[in-house]
């Protein structure tokens, strides 16, 4: 395991940012720390980098206890949400910074900077100032800068959070490809579940300073440990006493299937290839259901029609509990 976090607690005044966090992040993988804003995921990342000190607990990186190590000794690359570019230096100088601090020879620095700028597709911008770059380019430069020192782990704090949707999508794909090319252990913080599901090998879901679940994107989506994880990773609705995803409900026009619930279609909306509908059960529960357009057409679904709803086999479900619903 590349990064071991044991019993970490962190408070800011009265606010509990992290509460008894224990997690192991595997070597060579791309891990996402996923959770809502203010949940403690950035704090955990900053504690790994040494930019923040844990009140109690230990952090070890590649088997070395780093708990009391200063950030400059940890050999981690850190990429900030707002890029943290060195404004008064050219792109090449920014990337060279860590190498010059390490007193590498001029030739070596030049060679490595060229190589990195090529990797992040910024070779033609080497002599520009960061203010002449777009947001996406700045973030790629920041990545090259962090990679220049060949860090043991690369940490990214909401790396695409300040970019617009299209660039964010591009950079996300690009980060995934980059990680396949340069397989350094990478941890990135995000509050965007789609981003985490698409890019990460493993996801750590953090909420209210605690780790809710750790697993691959598929296992988290299919076997959520609790209601929070389930609702954070996608849409959730309630059918009877269980909570499940709207697309995991099967619709029938007759009560053939065992355990089906009768309901009337209250609203029906077509969005592109899918049909979303809200059905009211006899107990007065409103259930959201998502189905394909062709399936809806085959059944001839319309508002006001009576249907029977059944959780599809193999659907991810969690029991509906009042206390969890509040969160």
């Amino acid at each position, binding site marked *: 395991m590349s990064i071991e976090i044991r019993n970490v607690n962190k408070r800011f005044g009265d606010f509990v940012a992290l509460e008894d966090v224990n997690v192991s992040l595997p070597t060579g993988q791309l891990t996402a720390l996923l959770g809502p804003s203010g949940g403690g995921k950035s704090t955990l990342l900053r504690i790994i*980098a*040494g*930019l923040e000190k844990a009140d109690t607990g230990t952090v070890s990186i590649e088997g070395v206890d780093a708990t009391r190590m*200063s*950030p*400059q*000794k*940890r*050999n*981690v*690359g*850190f990429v*900030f949400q*707002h*890029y*943290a*570019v*060195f*404004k*008064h230096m050219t792109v090449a100088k920014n990337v060279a*910074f*860590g190498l010059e*601090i*390490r007193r590498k020879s001029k030739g070596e620095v030049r060679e490595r900077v060229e190589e990195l700028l090529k990797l992040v597709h910024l070779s033609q911008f080497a002599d520009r100032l960061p203010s002449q770059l777009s947001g996406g380019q700045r973030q790629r430069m*920041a990545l090259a*800068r*962090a990679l*220049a*020192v060949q860090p043991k782990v690369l940490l990214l704090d909401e790396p695409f959070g300040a970019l617009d949707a299209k660039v964010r999508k591009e950079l996300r794909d690009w980060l995934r490809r980059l990680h396949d090319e340069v397989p350094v252990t990478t941890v990135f913080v995000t509050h965007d579940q789609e981003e985490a599901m698409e890019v990460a090998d493993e996801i750590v879901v953090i909420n209210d300073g605690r780790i809710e679940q750790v697993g691959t994107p598929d296992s988290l989506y299919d076997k959520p440990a609790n209601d929070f994880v389930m609702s954070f990773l996608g849409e959730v609705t309630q059918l009877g006493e269980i909570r499940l995803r709207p697309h995991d409900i099967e619709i029938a026009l007759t009560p053939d299937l065992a355990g089906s619930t009768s309901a009337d279609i209250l609203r029906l909306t077509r969005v592109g290839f899918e049909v979303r509908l809200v059905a009211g059960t006899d107990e007065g529960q409103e259930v959201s259901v998502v189905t394909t357009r062709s399936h809806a057409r085959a059944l001839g679904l319309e508002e006001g029609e009576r249907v029977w709803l059944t959780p599809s086999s193999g659907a991810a479900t969690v029991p509906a509990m009042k206390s969890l619903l509040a969160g």
Partner: protein
Amino acid sequence: MVELSLPAKWAVRLLAIGYVFFLVGWPVITLTQRTFSDGLASFNAALSDPDVTHALLVTVEISIWAVIINTVFGVGMALLLVRYQFPGKRVLSALIDLPMSVSPVVIGLALMLVYSGRYGWFGPTLESHGLVVIFNSPGMIMATCFVALPLVVREVVPVLEEVGDDQEQAARSLGANAVQVLRRITLPAIKWAVVYGVVLSLARSLGEFGALKIVSGNLTGQTQTAPLVVEQKYNNFAQNEAYAVAFILVAISVLCILVVSLLRPQESTS
């Protein structure tokens, strides 16, 4: 922007220009006129007086020391105020502004009370170790530092706040130690604010009168500074010489302001 009618615009302009003219412009123009009313005669008279040239040298020397000390401590204190949390931070911040609101004469008297060789609280101890503070350069430099204290700090603090500490954290995570972060990241980012603060404190230091009159003892040919010489010459009816020295002081201040206004646009493009 508030839209004004044309006559109102002109009225506002006239009022502003008139105010500055009668308050600053006219007196300075008159001073210049008087200095050169008989050509360079009073100028030559002033500059050939060894007491005057000595006073100018003392002023420059004291000011340079005060500016150097003030810059180092000013940048240090600005960093302390912006980057660190500690108890008593607000008290420190308020104390830094104190010289702005207290008359320099009071500052002079306060320094006397602590460092005077005869009755000061700390002075006799220092003097027994051979360090004479009052009526000597150390006291004069201290008094000048005191009055110019806020100028560097208050220039640098807002810039440090605006820049944030992201760049410093990035540099640390790339392996830079505290000195490297300061030299390579922090100082380049606040460069222009420091320059501006230095120029302002230089102008302020050159012109200091009240505090220096008390702590220097105003000893002609020894601790007398240029502003003090102006007063002495004026009181001794050597008014033309007084005007000439005053003009030199004004000229240096104008030069300082010119330097600053030339730097300002560069600051906004960098």
